């Protein structure tokens, strides 16, 4: 009997801890969402509050009706995420399939070439010089799309280990004996069996593209029309920082021209909104993917 009483206390304790943690996890997002729906003058007078004196939709009206740049940035974010995820899945699936094939001559060497990129890298500057001087990605869509995000060794190894553990090589042999070409085997046999891992990797890639701001920051120096929503948010912080620190007499005027606080907060809510929408549907897949990676990286 002592145990059941203790059990009850433990359950209460657990629930309290988890409720507090869950609250902490979402409280900042809720505050920002409310700020974005607060009248801008109220914000200036009262500060950011959970219960504002005066609500307003002006910030969203500004974003979606008055400012074409924000809509444009939003469109670029979607475009980048869609194209990037597709490219990423194409490269990752094919390469992972190749290094999962038993009996492939040179398989060890190819696997090493993939794996080595996880251990050592040239760092930012050599990569920057390579992309800018050799491939001329500066101020192009490729600058957002290509560097670092398109494929990474971790995802390839994750998918490879799924192929090895979940698709018996006998099935592949059988397909070969039945006269299927490698392409047919991949499309008709492997991909249907690998749907869960493809979904997981697609999710990893999609989130990485949607959330990325570094590529735009590094590779878009002049062409602001290619800014994604993250880049736009990043740029506003940069400008405010610059203007508040500068001694320029125009600084105050320029600062006033920037989007108001409620607009900035509304932009960041718009930036997370798609993530929040898909989150309930994908988080299970995500957890499975991490677990798989933890079992064998």
């Amino acid at each position: 009997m002592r145990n059941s009483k203790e059990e009850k206390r433990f359950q209460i304790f657990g629930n309290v801890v988890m409720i507090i943690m869950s609250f902490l996890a979402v409280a900042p997002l809720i505050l920002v969402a409310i700020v974005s729906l607060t009248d801008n003058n109220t914000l200036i007078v009262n500060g950011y509050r959970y219960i504002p004196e005066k609500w307003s939709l002006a910030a969203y009206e500004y974003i979606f009706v008055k400012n074409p740049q924000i809509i444009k940035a939003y469109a670029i974010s979607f475009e980048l995420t869609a194209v990037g995820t597709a490219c990423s899945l194409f490269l990752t699936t094919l390469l992972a399939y190749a290094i999962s094939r038993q009996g492939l001559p040179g398989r060890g060497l190819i696997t090493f070439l993939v794996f080595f990129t996880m251990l050592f890298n040239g760092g930012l500057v050599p990569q920057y010089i390579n992309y800018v001087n050799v491939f001329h990605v500066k101020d192009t869509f490729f600058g957002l799309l290509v560097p670092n995000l398109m494929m990474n060794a971790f995802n390839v190894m994750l998918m490879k280990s799924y192929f090895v553990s979940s698709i018996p090589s006998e099935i592949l042999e059988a397909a070969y004996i039945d006269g299927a070409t490698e392409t047919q085997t991949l499309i008709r046999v492997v991909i249907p069996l690998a749907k869960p891992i493809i979904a997981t990797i697609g999710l990893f890639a999609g989130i990485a593209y949607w959330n990325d701001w570094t590529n735009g920051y590094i590779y878009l120096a002049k062409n602001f029309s290619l800014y994604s929503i993250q880049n736009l948010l990043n740029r506003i912080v940069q400008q405010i920082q610059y203007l508040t620190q500068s001694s320029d007499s125009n600084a105050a005027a320029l600062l006033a021209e920037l989007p108001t606080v409620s607009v900035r907060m509304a932009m960041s809510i718009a930036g997370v909104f798609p993530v929040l929408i898909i989150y309930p549907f994908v988080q299970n897949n995500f957890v499975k993917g991490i677990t798989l990676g933890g079992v064998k990286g």
Partner: protein
Amino acid sequence: MSAKMKNAGPAAVRPQQKKLAKRIKRFFPVYIMALPGLTYLFINNYMPLPGLALAFKKYSTKKGIWGSPWIGLKNFRYLFRTQDAWIITRNTIGYNLAFIILTVVLAVAVAIILSEMTTKWKKVYQSVILLPHFLSMVIVSYLVYAFLSAEHGYFNCVIFPALGIKEIAWYNEPKYWPFILVFVHIWKGIGYSCIIYLSTILGFDREIYEAAAIDGASKLKQISTITLPLLRPTIIMMVLLAIGRIFYSDFGLFYQVPQRSGILLPVTQTIDTYVYRGLLERNDMPASTAAGVYQSAVGFILVMSANLIVRRIDKDSALF
């Protein structure tokens, strides 16, 4: 692929060579499949490697990397003579150590609590605490700003007046930032970190717990004598792997969240932010590359050593 053929060497018997040639022919389409991915890795990861030479050169934009003269270790000597090298190393390692220790303690605690809970809400809890992991650091910097803004922030406008505490100009006060950055890191990463521990615990044999319960072991006793000892190998692996990455920092966290405030640099500058600033703000490519080489080299040694130790303890958990 050709390396394998060379390995076979001239001494290899003919039939074997023929067999290999036949296998290569059979797998030809598979090589074609590997090609796009390998090309990408070549462009993204291998082509930049010779550029590391820049760290040993006096760079001039006109002459390019290969036309610029060699200057040996001068860039490194310059980097290590300044305070910068010490500050960025201290910050990178210091923050990572704090992250590693706190993450392990909290993630294991949360995983144990979740694993022992009977309510069906536990799935919801897990999803909710994982949510911050999906936010970009730019967004996170806006969330933090909503609380810490000097004029309108939630702390200065609501909490502090209620408690009668004086306002704090957060973005101008370095002393608070180690705590803020650690908090933000844990807040963002705790849900992610506890997933591995939770799935490990759920894989334990429940019969051990039932037997312990019959023997009258309390819940806490079960946790300390069953769960924690069984979880130890996983904890050791995760910590060692994190130590292997101790020379790398989350660029977004240290660059975005402090809103690039210059006053905060002594406590927010890490190797990664130093490299970025060298390239994009100071326009000092050689020093930036030197710091990058320093990071890559030490990082490589650390990853290899950590992996070596992991291999010794548990071969299956090792990276390779």
